């Protein structure tokens, strides 16, 4: 049990713990990618990691900067075309867990990565949905990881890029979805899970040293706490060292190549 760790490290490790050896996991880039690989390098060595570029069963030694780094293909069991990835593997219902991040989330775990402001006259144009709309509907369940902040956790999304629990309650079932949708949101301060009835995100676990007030202050809606809230176990020494090692390897690997004048 360590006491010297950052909130981001706690977030990544808490996210990693959500995964198991039997998961077939569709990995989003950024925080999800770190969490999935920490899981693989600690308690879930046989987890299957899939990136939407087509790499299946990949075991990267450094974290990819993009979803299509060569490292992902070099260490994959096999690599398929992108149409096949989305048709046979994602839509085919073969993915147990999708791991997403996002720019904004609402209380029903809907995500926005498209625009801030009106779609036609955006204040901020974000990258867009990419794989998210169909990851959100076709994976068995969805984990989301993003830092808790008022800008990110908002009362109302300007745009629903990918559906979580929609308007809450049985909204997913009403739209014919048979998958579970978001079952856990892992932040740098706490873990949220949808209420079984209303599907509103509710704090179920608070990271060590975090005050409830700080969670309330950093959420854009009046956040609810579950009846029983536990404390997230602090990172173990192994978890932390695995995470720090892969981050160090990654940093080293992504530096170097010259500014368009010299090659890497």
């Amino acid at each position, binding site marked *: 049990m360590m006491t010297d760790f950052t909130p981001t490290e706690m977030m990544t490790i808490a996210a990693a713990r959500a995964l198991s050896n039997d998961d077939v996991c569709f990995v989003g*880039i950024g925080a999800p990618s770190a969490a999935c690989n920490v899981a693989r390098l600690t308690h879930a060595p046989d987890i299957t990691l899939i990136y*939407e*570029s*087509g*790499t299946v069963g990949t075991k990267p030694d450094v974290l*990819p*900067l*993009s*979803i*299509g*780094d*060569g490292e992902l*293909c*070099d260490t994959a069991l096999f*690599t398929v*075309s*992108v*149409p096949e*990835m*989305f*048709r046979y593997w*994602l*839509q085919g219902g073969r993915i147990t867990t999708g791991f997403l991040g996002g720019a904004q989330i609402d209380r029903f775990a*809907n995500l926005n990565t*498209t625009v801030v402001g009106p*779609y*036609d006259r*955006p*204040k*901020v*144009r*974000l*990258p*867009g*949905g*990419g*794989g998210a*709309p*169909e990851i959100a*509907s076709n994976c068995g369940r969805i984990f989301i990881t993003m830092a808790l902040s008022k800008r990110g956790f908002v009362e109302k999304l300007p745009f*629903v*890029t*990918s*559906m979580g629990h*929609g308007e809450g309650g049985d*909204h997913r079932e009403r*739209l*014919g*979805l048979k998958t579970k949708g978001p079952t856990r949101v892992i932040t740098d301060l706490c873990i949220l899970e949808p209420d079984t009835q209303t599907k509103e995100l509710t704090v179920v676990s608070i990271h060590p040293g975090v005050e409830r007030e700080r969670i309330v202050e950093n959420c854009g809606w009046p956040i609810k706490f579950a009846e029983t809230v536990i404390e997230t176990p602090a990172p173990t020494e192994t978890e932390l060292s695995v995470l720090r090692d892969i981050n160090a390897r990654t940093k080293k*690997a*992504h*530096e*170097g*190549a*010259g*500014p*368009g004048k*010299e*090659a*890497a």
Partner: protein
Amino acid sequence: MARIMSLTDAVAENVRDGDTVAMEGFTHLIPYAAGHEVIRQGKKDLFLVRMTPDILYDQLIGVGAARGMKFSWGGNPGVGSLHRFRDAVENQWPRPLAIEEHSHAAMANAYEAGAANLPFAMLRGYVGADLPKVNSNIKSVTCPFTGEVLAAVPAIRPDVTIIHAQRADRKGNVLLEGIVGVQKEAVLAARRSIVTVEEIVDELSPPSPNSVVLPTWAVTAVAYVPGGAFPSYAHGYYPRSNAFYIRWDEIARDRQTFTAWIKENVLDARPEDFARYAATTSAKVA
């Protein structure tokens, strides 16, 4: 049959003002050298198609070559925004950009439908998402057996598709390996196609009977441009320059530094300049 020709001639003959152009590559094998040649030749009013418009399309948009873009994820992977893309959408600089936005699944299926000569693609998609509200090219189709309703999008049929590949033989047969993205579909869906390659070899020698090969009669032009995917990469030839992707953020953030970079590295450069990226890397691993 594909003609093996210079990149300059291949672009001059096959890319026309106003064309719908797909330059594909899912992180891997992005045809940067060819895209730069398109900029140098001053092609204009292009309608760009690509799942993941990254730096290359940021460059094309920034120089004002594009009238519109169909895409599903427009960012600098792992780094952040595409500033030229944002400037065009948010401030109409240097010109307005009409966007048609989809999900990856829809775009991948739409290319697939184009390659299969179907007018549209169907998918289990867009459930509960807002894109169908702002994109009239997302409709639905009903299963004649079960009554289920599925999302439908038009097939993508570019006027010209441009890709980069590892190698071609002297007849113009092309081999791709590694992360192959939607390049095969994009080529087969297009009226014309240009493939730049790292190597031209006597025998293609696919490593497996089921390798990804495009036969010469399915390709219009092949151009020998070693290093032509930099700062993207060519599996087995050279790695991705993640450092350049990170650095692009500063270059593109400002209109002036962007314009200066384009002048120095595109307008005043030649296709042959890409060879240094192929040459300075570690030995082939393929």
